[in-house]
């Protein structure tokens, strides 16, 4: 099975679509049933059939959020200790969540033989803050190097659960805050990048729109508004595209990434997508 980059480079449009928000609204009334594996796969199949991304993404953050809603005792356990990385560690160690995600990944792999399958998760720096915020709503947290380091180790361990799921890649999502701290935190991501390399998954970052990519290196691919040397470029298509604006051409040896706005008009979405072929 070819890793992500090979599959994307291999003909086709090289188009990676994030349709989570749009398809959630259009096909699931705003609530994707992540806790019901069959229903969730059904939703994804419909969305993929309608929109046709070259990459099928399993959004770990959304799945985890849905499970947290159903299991207040897990949130409670996450809040048990004040240490910054504790909430994330507890979340990632939860066997029910791991099992659900692994089974979703396996089902997706068998449902979509032709597309690349990617596990999308918040980056260590981003996820520490996110998980802490879920455990302690309203409280702020200091994300220092130790916290990022711990987080990276926990995430690396978590990723091993997906060894046999047939993944092609791992996408680490940065928030605006975590993207700005990337110069310091990126080297700390090494443990999980090692796991990805071991399983031959392409690993890359998803940068927020227009964030600077200066100094970002050592990754298989980078999704950002501009290319960076050393990584396969995944060029972000700007939001203005969906209102009729231009899309940048596909970069050499790379691909394009587009997020469909949640409230977009269905007829125009299909028209805009057709223009990218």
């Amino acid at each position: 099975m070819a890793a992500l980059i090979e599959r994307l480079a291999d003909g086709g449009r090289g188009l990676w679509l994030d349709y989570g928000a749009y398809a959630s609204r259009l096909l699931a009334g705003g609530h994707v049933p992540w806790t019901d594996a069959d229903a969730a796969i059904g939703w994804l199949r419909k969305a993929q059939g309608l929109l046709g991304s070259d990459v099928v993404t399993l959004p770990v953050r959304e799945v985890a959020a849905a499970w947290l809603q159903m299991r207040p005792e897990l949130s409670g356990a996450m809040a048990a200790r004040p240490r910054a990385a504790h909430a994330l560690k507890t979340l990632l160690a939860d066997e029910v969540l791991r099992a659900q995600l692994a089974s979703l990944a396996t089902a997706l792999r068998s449902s979509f033989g032709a597309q690349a399958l990617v596990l999308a998760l918040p980056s260590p720096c981003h996820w520490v803050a996110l998980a802490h915020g879920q455990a302690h709503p309203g409280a702020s947290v200091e994300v220092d190097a130790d916290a990022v380091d711990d987080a990276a180790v926990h995430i690396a361990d978590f990723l091993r659960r997906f060894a046999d799921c047939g993944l092609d890649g791992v996408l680490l999502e940065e928030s605006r805050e975590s993207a700005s701290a990337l110069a310091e935190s990126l080297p700390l991501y090494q443990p999980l990048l090692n796991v990805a390399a071991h399983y031959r998954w392409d690993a890359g970052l998803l940068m927020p729109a227009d964030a600077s990519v200066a100094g970002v290196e050592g990754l298989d691919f980078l999704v950002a508004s501009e290319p960076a040397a050393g990584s396969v470029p995944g060029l972000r298509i700007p939001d203005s595209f969906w209102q009729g604006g231009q899309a940048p051409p596909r970069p050499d040896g790379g691909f394009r990434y587009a997020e469909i706005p949640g409230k977009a008009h269905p007829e125009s979405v299909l028209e805009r997508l057709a223009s990218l072929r």
Partner: protein
Amino acid sequence: MKSKQSAAAIKISQVHDVEPAAAKAGKLINIDNGGTLTDICVIDGGRVWRTKTVTTPHDLSKCLLDGLVKASRTIYGRDDLLSLLLSTEYIRYSTTQGTNALVERKGPRLGLILGGTLKAAELQGTAQQTDLLASLVGVRIETLDPSLAGDALETAAVRAVNGLSSAGANRIVVAFGGSARSSGEADLKKLLLRKFPPHLLGAIPILYSHEVVDDAEDARRAWTAMFNAFLHPAMERFLYNAEHKLRQYRTRNPLLIFRNDGHSARVSRTIALKTYSSGPRGGAEGSKALASHYGFRRLLSMDVGGTTTDISLVEDGVVRAHRRGQVEGVETSFPLCDVVSAGVGGSSIIRAEGRAIRVGPESVGGAPGPACFGLGGKEATMTDAFLLGGLLDPASYFGGELRIDVERARAAIGEKVALPLGLTPEKAAQAMEEAWVGKIAASLRDYAPITPDTVLAAFGGAGPFVVCKVAEALGIRRIIIPGLAAVFSAFGIGFSDVAHSFEMPLASNDAAGLQAASELLLLQARRAMFGEGAELEQCRIEQSLRVIDPAGERSIALGEGEPVIPAQARVSLVLQAVKPISHAKLAGEFGKATCGAVSTAKRRTLSGELPLYRVEEQPAGSTAAGPAVLEEAFFTCRIEPGWRFEINQAGDILLSRS
């Protein structure tokens, strides 16, 4: 307490009263494993439960077990697979794995050894054959010189097998042509077993075509063997996997596999190729059971889905079949039921073409679907026309779960049909209906002549909509909409018995030859049925002669008295042993309506404001006359003036024209 069911499982638990059983032998479970969804039907005397689960192509035994667990949840209110299986007598299983594997060309690399008079060119008479041979076999073909014998033959045969093996073959098919076909293949088998003992790790499985089927048309028999070899490993892996998982629950009887000939058997006694296209056969068996129960001599079935309308026929208790069924356009030795797929359905794209209206064959598919789905589709479909015409009510469509938007339907119909033809959208919707009905009627008429006693059966999501109009176009006066239309295939496989068929050419075309063949086949049947856990005495034996002569091929049933065996023909004895096993029984009668159906609402359609009858609200044995709209969770039906409907105690609906 109702257990939570996923969106993929049916929201409304359908419980039908079939017939109260006198003695509870055990539950019957029917599993119809389709491409996207797997349907499970559990029958316990008078009750029927159904559930759906998503098919897991990477491991079909997973959705089998998952589906059974879900079924147990529906029945017991909690997951209890053990209780379900302990109380089950038979599990019948029908799968599309074979069909999919061939369509996707996913299987072993075959090698072919030809002998006798059979040459590779004879296997490539048509474009489909050439294409398939290239995909399944490629260059891995070895032809043995028919003049070789003894040591020379041995050397050539060994070289052939080694050659195919180095070319990458992981399964070999042997096919000889000419009158010495069986003995030639049998001799080669002995030779190869000596030279390549099967217990060695490097041994490649070899399939001899005369062991798969007895058919003197060598190319056809070779193709049959090749298809079987191609399907064999995947079917074997999956079915043994499934059986193994079930055995842990100490099921009473082994898993039964439903075949495309309408019968079932254990995994170990099933030929892979006979599972190909078993799905449509399940539906046909359901139709056959319906026809027999209600005394319909001729039942024409139309299953109208999104893209196609599948048409089949049951006449005089027999499912119409091709004696030599086609697999991927290539004729094989085995029969397959004759189902025609016409390119017209609820999602067919309908457009103005000049002054006329064109219906399909392209369809909008599941996504984006009809314009009214609001997923971005802009084409006009019949679903849009039914919505604009008022036949569909957004509040009740799919129980209100699928949102449909009449303005989008109007816009699509306006742009694609009304404007080009200079009509209002409403008039365009009516014209679309006429064109759609016309295409379906024409497809039905092409398939079979319509006789005065032909009854039409309507299934599929889009079947019942304007079925009265389809019937009127054909001069048909009675229509049946079965209560279990939505699960018809799964229900249908439940009528199958365990059966095995054997065939052997007569050594001489006389009574002595017939007697000898009969004795040999009875012995084979006894062994086979013993493998099924039955004594031959418990089985029904049916014998017939297959006669092939210059006039063609025909069958002579063997009953009382001396049969006339043609002297100048190729005659084979066909013997079928059938062990009847428990199956669902149909109940319900028509013509015994006791009360008027109750209408509690109206539906505003282009034909006026019509009384709406909801099937769930009607008592058994109720009837009413059209014009009206009859609706339930899975279908909507417009009853035309001059027609009347009757809902019987089994939930089956008969529409009749006065």
